[in-house]
């Protein structure tokens, strides 16, 4: 009897607990909206319509989720290996610059080649930026949180500098590059107002899941994340694992930056990725660091954000409230996944 009651109070599976956390955060959000003098149900309806009310809206939501997902999967991979990579923010920015530079260089190439080259350029630039952090971390024993975090600011300044110089559009009055050559624009998905970035992102998530669960490299990464002592005993090189995870995460973040530049803005704009990298960390944690679970987590955040603008427009609830909802969700999910010892 005692046992039956316990089961009802505490949903045993991880998924059940996360659902419960989401439910609680929705209730809190409703209370906050009511406090601000609006009807919570009307606000939620506005969010839902704004997020997925039309093909155009769905497309915008998918586009919004894409960078979070691509970069978040890489962050999850690092976290699984016990490497706390907070550098996605800078890696996305540098990746965007790398993609823009490559795209401008390949302006004469036919579309598929130019697109692939530009995305690869973005990934390479992101990986290189992550490599700088890794070299500092492993070479000089600077904690990886510091190395990755501080390089974010350097990265943003670097992109600014590039836009003020070689990549900038002369006389634009704003720090931005010239429009990318048409051959490098990501195509629109038929029927949706979205670029194919989200598909690339889902493939990336699936690939990371495969690496994590079906390869010796992923196994070694999971062991290292659980116990550094056991990893050393097993004969894994911690340095090599850290390089692997960081370069993969950097490449993914760079790819996210490239997709954003080629798919959304079609030029490199100062601050185009502001906050994306930190949102990627949120999304990775929300997805319990499980690459496939990061997909719904990124969708959740993307839908919520694109719906929040509609809510503000239609019924006047400030969209900043959605930021609060995101924060609450994050807290509830962390409590739900960590609480049990």
């Amino acid at each position: 009897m005692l046992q039956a009651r316990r089961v009802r109070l505490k949903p045993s599976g991880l998924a059940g607990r996360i659902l419960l956390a989401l439910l609680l955060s929705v209730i809190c959000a409703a209370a906050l909206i009511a406090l601000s003098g609006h009807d919570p149900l009307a606000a939620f309806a506005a969010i839902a319509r704004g997020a997925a009310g039309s093909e155009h809206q769905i497309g915008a939501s998918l586009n919004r989720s894409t960078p979070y997902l691509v970069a978040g999967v890489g962050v999850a991979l690092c976290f699984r290996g016990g490497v706390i990579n907070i550098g996605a923010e800078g890696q996305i920015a540098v990746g965007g610059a790398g993609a823009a530079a490559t795209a401008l260089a390949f302006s004469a190439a036919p579309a598929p080649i130019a697109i692939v080259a530009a995305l690869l350029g973005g990934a390479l630039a992101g990986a290189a930026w992550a490599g700088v952090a890794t070299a500092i971390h492993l070479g000089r024993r600077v904690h990886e949180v510091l190395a990755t975090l501080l390089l974010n600011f350097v990265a943003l300044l670097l992109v600014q500098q590039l836009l003020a110089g070689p990549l900038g559009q002369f006389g634009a009055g704003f720090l931005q590059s010239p429009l990318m050559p048409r051959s490098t624009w990501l195509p629109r998905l038929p029927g949706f107002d979205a670029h194919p970035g989200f598909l690339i992102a889902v493939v990336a998530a699936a690939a990371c899941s495969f690496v994590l669960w079906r390869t010796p490299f992923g196994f070694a990464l999971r062991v290292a994340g659980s116990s550094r002592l056991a990893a050393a005993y097993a004969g894994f090189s911690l340095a090599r694992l850290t390089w692997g995870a960081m370069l993969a995460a950097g490449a993914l973040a760079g790819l996210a930056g490239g997709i954003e530049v080629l798919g959304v803005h079609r030029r490199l704009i100062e601050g185009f990725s502001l906050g994306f990298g930190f949102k990627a960390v949120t999304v990775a944690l929300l997805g319990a660091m499980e690459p496939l679970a990061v997909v719904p987590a990124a969708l959740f955040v993307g839908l919520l954000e694109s719906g929040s603008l509609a809510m503000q427009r239609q019924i006047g609830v400030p969209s900043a409230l959605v930021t609060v909802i995101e924060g609450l969700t994050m807290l509830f999910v962390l409590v739900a996944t960590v609480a049990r010892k």
Partner: protein
Amino acid sequence: MRNGAESVSALLEMRGIVRRFGDLCANDNIDLDVRPGEILGLLGENGSGKSTLMKVLFGMLTPDAGSINFRGRPLAGHTPAEAMAAGIAMIHQHFMLIDAMTVTENVMLGWPAAGRVLRAKDVAARVREASQRFGLDLDPDAQIAKLPLGRRQRVEILKAILREAELLILDEPTSNLAPAEVADLLTILRRLRAENKGIVFITHKLPEVLEVCDNVVVLRTGRVAGRAPVAGASQGQLAEMMIGRDVSTPRKIDTARPPGEPRLEVLGLSAPGLAPLTFEIRSGEILGVAGVDGNGQIELVETLTGLRPARAGQIALKGCDVTRSTVAARMRLGLAYMPADRAYTALVKTMSVAENLMLRDSRRPPYGRGPILTRASGAAKARALMADYDIRARDPNFIVARLSGGNQQKIVVARELDRGPAVLIAHQAAWGLDPGATRFVLDRMIALRDEGAAILYVSSELEEVLAISDRVAVMARGGFAGIVPRPDVDMRQIGLWMAGRAA
């Protein structure tokens, strides 16, 4: 005292304790009584339910059924803090002391009676007084880090005494002690008995039970398999009660056989905490290393396996110099290693049995081929190893943290032996195992030796070392105090070596 105890009313009465974990019944209707002035031996194989029962008593687990009466009052739904306040003290295998603090400071830690403003002098005086009364021989101002393990244990006992505990639970208290320290501990236990304290003494070691306990309760698979007064019992009877069959000492090894070519050659090897060492182990030979823990054992095995760098000297495996080689390279040359630290090094407790079995072999068949894990053949292999090594888990995906200590160690043994190693380094390989499991591990090692492997067997259990070694070395202060072939072992000499005196 031994026979007069019958008339005294019980200090502790546990009745019909039931505790289940899923479909596993760890405690199945257990009754346990302790009287004041009684030392009760609690025996049982690994996973027989001893720890569960004591955790229930101490309030760390809630029982599914049953009642506890302590000093005439019911105890239910209590926390460890409440159990302590009621007068129950638990002395764990791993001491809960702060190394950087003194004895007095550790006693004051978390003790309301030490005062809101700490009265260090008063407490130190009480430490001195109690230490004298029970023969603990503790200096109140000594720093814990500088005390040998036996003394640290006495600090724990002292804490219990000063907190006016009436019942002391000692969980395998002798497993980290040198023989002389064990004798001292048993003397202290007798004094506590004379002061009318109740003691539950959890152990695997039957000679100690015979020496100090009044009664024994034997658990087997969660039930009471027997209870008996110790007077008149023999070691064989107790062992049979514990595992339901007779366990004699491990198979005698044939020392007359000449060993083969050198497999492990160590020349002038030194590292921090390790004095220059020179020795070799040949094919078909077991070198046993005895000695009190903390005399360089961990430094020796970790330097040999590549987890710590050597400062000087040479290590050769099968004739190849591996002094600067990685852990993985040494493994490829046939070096197997069973670390003493099971919790964080030898196993990843949050992972499954199958994943732990492939921990060091994930890139090799049957677990992996090239860059891919072959999960089906890996699971099949895991099932085979579980059957071969009697690892009792429901299936290969069972989480290791939920297995008993003995079953956890069998995973390590299975993984390291199944590779067919040329050289095996085993550190405390039978630590915390019951006699049945210990014998199983030792027999497997002897079989490996007979197949031609060279084995370095490091243990603080002198009996184990003597049972399986061709040669015995004693470690003291980071070096070998002496090394002798087993037929020439002189126990008095070994004792002197263990105490750190030169030959």
